[in-house]
C-alpha cells in the first residue's frame, strides 16, 4: 500500500511545505514516514516515494544511504544510540558504553536476541553537558535520555522489554 493511501493527510502536509515544482524536497520527510511502522525502509517504499516525487529510485536510495537516521534493513525495534564523541567521552561515555555491552551481552552494533534493542555508538548529539547520554530511535521518532547511569539505563531496558512482551 502506498504512503499516499496509508497516510493521505501527512503526505499532503509534507508536499505543501515545498514549491510544487520542487517536490523532490519532500524525499526526506517521506522517508521518515516510510520508516514509521517497521523502523526501516523497504525497496517497495523507496520505489513508491520515487514515483510520487518523479525521481529515480536510485536517487531515493542515495538519500537513504547518505543519512545515518535512515535504515534499509530490519534491526532492533529500538535503536539505542550512545554518544561516544569527544565531549561525552571526557565525561565517561566510553566506560558507560562498555558497561552497557557487558550488561546486555552484545557488542556495539549488535542486536539483543529478542530483537528489541540494537546498541549503536554515534557522534555528537548536542547534549555534551548531560553525559553520559543516548537517544532511542524507534519508528519515525526519537527520545533523548540524559545524565544517565548504567543502573538507570538497565531499568529503562527492562521497561522496554516488558512493553515488547505485551506487543508480541
Amino acid at each position, binding site marked *: 500500500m502506498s504512503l499516499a493511501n496509508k497516510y493521505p493527510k501527512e503526505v499532503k502536509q509534507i508536499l505543501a*511545505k*515545498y*514549491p510544487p515544482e*520542487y517536490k*523532490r*524536497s*519532500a*524525499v*526526506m*520527510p517521506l*522517508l*521518515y514516514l516510510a520508516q514509521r511502522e517497521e523502523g526501516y525502509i523497504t525497496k517497495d517504499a523507496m520505489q513508491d516515494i520515487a514515483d510520487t*516525487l518523479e*525521481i529515480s529510485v536510485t*536517487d531515493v536510495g*542515495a*538519500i537513504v544511504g*547518505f*543519512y*545515518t*537516521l*535512515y535504515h534499509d534493513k530490519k534491526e532492533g525495534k529500538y535503536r539505542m544510540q550512545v554518544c561516544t*564523541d*569527544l*565531549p561525552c*567521552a*571526557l*565525561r565517561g561515555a566510553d566506560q558507560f558504553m562498555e558497561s552497557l555491552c557487558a550488561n546486555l551481552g552484545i557488542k556495539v552494533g549488535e542486536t539483543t536476541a529478542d530483537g528489541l534493542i540494537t546498541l549503536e555508538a*554515534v*557522534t*555528537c*548529539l*548536542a*547534549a*555534551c*553537558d548531560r553525559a553520559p547520554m543516548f*537517544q532511542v530511535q524507534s519508528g*519515525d*521518532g*526519537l*527520545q*533523548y535520555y540524559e545524565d544517565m547511569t548504567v543502573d538507570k539505563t538497565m531499568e529503562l531496558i527492562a521497561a522496554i522489554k516488558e512493553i515488547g512482551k505485551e506487543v508480541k
Partner: protein
Amino acid sequence: MSHILLRHREIPDISNLNVYKKNGGFEVFKKAVTKMKPSEVTDTVKASGLRGRGGAGFPTGVKWSFIDNKIWPHYVVANADESEPGTFKDREIMESNPLQFLEGVAIASYAVGAKSAYVYLRGEFWQIAKSMDEKIAEMEEAGYLGEKLFGTDYSLHIYTHLGAGAYICGEETAMLESIEGKRGQPRIRPPFPAVYGLYGKPTVVNNVETLTNLPMILANGADWYKSLGTPDSAGVKIFSLSGRVRKPGNYELPFGTTFRQLIYEHGGGVQDGRPVKAIMPAGASSSFIVADDKALDTQMDYASVRTLGADLGSASVIVIDDIVSIDWIINKTIHFFKHESCGKCTPCREGTYWMMHLIDRIPESGYSKADVDLLLNVAHQMQNKCLCPLGEFSTMAVATGIERFPQDFKKQ
C-alpha cells in the same frame, strides 16, 4: 545582568505565546513590517555589529546586503543543524525560547524580502521540530505569520525541515542541497547563496543564535547592543562549556569574558581540582590552546582568541585537564571527521581515512616518530585544498596537537 537570548532563565514560560507577547514579543516585527523599510532593518543590524554565531563570525547585516535584488523569490534558511561536538546552545534556545528565535527568522525574512523561510533542524531534534511546528501554527493563528501581515502586502510562511544525521549539513550549501532533497554535499562556491541559494534563488542562511539576537537589537537599538561586548565582537555570546569542568552548560556572557572567568567563576573549576591543560574553544574543529596563565586570562572575542593561534568559532569551549593525553583527543576528533566526511572532495575523503589509520596505529606502534611525522604531513597536505571547511577543520586539532603538545606523541 538578565539574559538577552536565554530569557527563559528569568521568564520560565516564555515559550507560551501570550507570555512572550506580554514581554514585548512580536512588537518589533510588527513595527518593522508596518513602519520600517527592509533596508532600515538591515542598516540597524549592520550598525549593531552583530556577527554570525554559527562559527564564521561574518557580519550579519553585511551578509544580508549581498542578496541579489534582480533575482526573485528570496529565501531565508535558519541553520538549526547544531552538530559540532561541544555545541548545545541552539538546542536550549529552541527548546525554551522558541518564539524569540522565530521572531528573529521573521525579521530577517522581512529585511531580505523573503516570503518563505525554512528552519533546517538536525534529525536528532525531532521533538524540537514537532513543538516548533506547533509554535508556527500558533503564530499563524495569531496573525504573526501568513498572508498580508498587519494589513500590509507582506506575507511570510515558515516551515521546518528535518535533517537525518549528517554533520556536513551544517555547511550552508550542503544544507541547501539537503532541503532540495539531495545528499548533503557542499557546492562549489562561488556563486554564494546570496546569489544562487535554495532552488537557485538568492538565499540568506543564518544560525539560530544569530537570529535570536534580532528582536532584542531592534527593540533596544544598535548602540545598546554595541555597548555590550568588545569593539571587535559586539554583544553577548552563548558559551557552551563542556569537558572536565564541574558545572558544564550554556553560559550567556558578553564577549570579552576571559577563559578563566568562564571555567572557574561560571563553570566551577576543573573536576577533582586538577589544572587545565588545554582548551578547545570551537569544539572538535578547534586548534588546541595551551592553557597557560596568559591564555586563561585572554578575553573570549574573535580577535583576542586569534592571538592564541585558534578561532573562537561557535564558542563551544571543551576543557581538557592534565590526566588526558592529546593523542587520545585527536583520535576522537579524527574518527568523528572520518565518519562525517561527505566523500565529495578527494583531500577530505582520503585525508581523513589515512589520518584515522595513522592515529589508530600510533599507540600500537609505541609512538613511532615516523608515524607521527607522517600524520602531521597528511594534515598539512590537506590544508587549503578541501572543498569546504569540514576538511580543513579535521586537520586543526591534529596539526596543533602534535605541534603544541609534542610530549603526548612520544613513548610514555
